[in-house]
């Protein structure tokens, strides 16, 4: 049964269409990786799901259903209720994941306060427990964002996302700002949670290696269109679209190192 159903989604500015009617579905418990080069429209598509498009961008769609509810007709309050509670986001820039002026604990608390009527005591316990689940030290709650290392902060952002056990986590390039070592750590943890909670993940990246490692299914985007869609194993073994083949070839291997990496289209960078 599908959790999120998108069909014919278009995003445009006043002058130009950025996303040209894409279709995507995510089943409950599915981890979908959306791959594509920079500027292919991954982020704006993801933002349009929970009505978070920046000013000046508008979305239209034939169908936009989340867990049986029609998002196209949902009220502002409905969206507010949805965000952070049922659909959670993790963005790329960990530095900006939290307001620099308040301690992390305070900001997690704000989220809980917005969506529950729990007592402060319970909220505090829950926040601490969530951090622990991500193997983050408990004193993180009392620190300001800039007092925390990059990997930890990105995991704290993940904590903010999973606080209320959302049905869908949208992770928009959550690791590009991290080094390879920390990136893997964060994704490992996201994978653990997904397994444990059975939530769905919409994972946006342009790193095919990571997608292959963590996702069940993949969609490859280029120029505002989905070029290919399938299970991870299908795509790695039998890529159909040229863009897919290029991306796969570009990953340097650890063994049997070639003299050159295969690059499909010379002269374009």
């Amino acid at each position, binding site marked *: 049964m599908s959790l999120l159903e998108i069909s014919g989604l278009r995003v445009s500015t006043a002058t130009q269409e950025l996303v040209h009617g894409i279709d995507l579905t995510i089943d409950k418990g599915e981890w979908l990786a959306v791959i594509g080069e920079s500027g292919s429209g991954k982020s704006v598509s993801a933002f349009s799901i*929970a009505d*978070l498009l920046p000013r000046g961008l508008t979305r239209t769609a034939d169908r936009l259903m989340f867990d049986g509810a029609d998002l196209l007709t949902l009220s502002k309050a409905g969206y507010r209720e949805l965000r952070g509670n049922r659909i*959670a986001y993790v*963005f790329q820039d960990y530095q900006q994941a939290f307001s620099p002026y308040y301690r992390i604990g305070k900001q997690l608390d704000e989220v809980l306060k917005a969506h529950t009527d729990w007592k402060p005591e319970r909220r505090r316990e829950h926040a601490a427990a969530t951090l622990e689940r991500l193997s983050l030290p408990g004193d993180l709650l009392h620190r300001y964002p800039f007092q925390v290392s990059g990997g930890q902060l990105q995991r704290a*952002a993940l904590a903010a996302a999973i606080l209320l056990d959302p049905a869908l986590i949208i992770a928009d390039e959550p690791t590009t700002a991290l080094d390879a070592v920390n990136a893997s750590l964060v994704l490992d943890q996201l994978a653990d949670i997904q397994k444990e909670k059975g939530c769905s993940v919409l994972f946006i990246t342009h790193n095919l290696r990571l997608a292959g490692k963590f996702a069940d299914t993949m969609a490859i985007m280029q120029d505002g269109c989905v070029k290919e869609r399938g299970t991870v194993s299908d795509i790695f073994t039998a890529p159909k679209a040229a863009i897919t083949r290029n991306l796969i070839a570009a990953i340097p291997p650890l063994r049997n190192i070639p003299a050159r990496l295969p690059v499909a289209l010379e002269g374009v960078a």
Partner: protein
Amino acid sequence: MVALKKLGEGLVFLWLLTLVAFAVVKLAPGDVVLSMLRIDTVAVTNEQIEALREELGLNMPIWQQYLAYLGSLAHLDFGTSAMTGQPVIAEIGKAFPATLMLAGYALALALILAAILGAVGARFAGRWPDRGVLAFCMLGASIPTFWLALVMLNVFSVRLGVVPSMGMGDGGMILPTVALAFAVAPPYIKILRNSLIESQDLDFVRASRSRGLGEQVIFFRHILRASLIPVVTIAGVSLGSLLGGTVVVEKIFGIPGVGKLMLEALTRRDYAVIQAFIILIGVIVFLINTLVDLSYRWLDPAISLKGKARA
């Protein structure tokens, strides 16, 4: 550690200030002697002028004068006003409340204006209310304060007679306050407006929105907080135009403040007063800047804690 460094910087600054105060006066032509001898009503000879100069120590070598000056400053002795024979401290102390009141009222009014107009500008960014706000800022930044004050005086006091022209009680402060606030407010309005607009697109504001926080929480806790930092920054800087403005406004409206005292001291070459004035202003500015610094620390914890975080 930080406090110690601040203290050190403060002392260096204070010393520089004494140097400036002393130098300004020594570089100046003329001295207080003519005024002390009342030459516009008493016939005196150049011989008498020289004698008084000698007596006042004005003919000592410059460095001796500076040391003597530093020495008396160390005892918090700012000297005696040659005009009145009163301790300078007392003179300034008497004039200070009026200036403080004027500056305080004007600043308060400017901040209220800034809060309202800044919010309006940001809320309607790009549309006509915003343009109106920007035009107001442009106008406010371009009108000579004293000119505005005189025009207002003419219109409201002389022609309409709705407010008194001078004096401090009974609404006498209305025109001076408004004139001064008009000059001081524009940078606040503009900065607040701009940073409100900019903050709305900050990533962490977006992140908060994605977590389903209410718009009010986002505005008051996250956007406003970020916008206050530049406002506080210019608070330190606009102090200058505020104090400068008070001098002019005090003169026009006959408000017996520090500015008026300084103007009088300037014409009478009452250098002890001018020196004390320089040091007073310097210290005020230093205090305000320290306050601004502290409020940064409160507004942006990163500033106070970053050092610690790294160490």
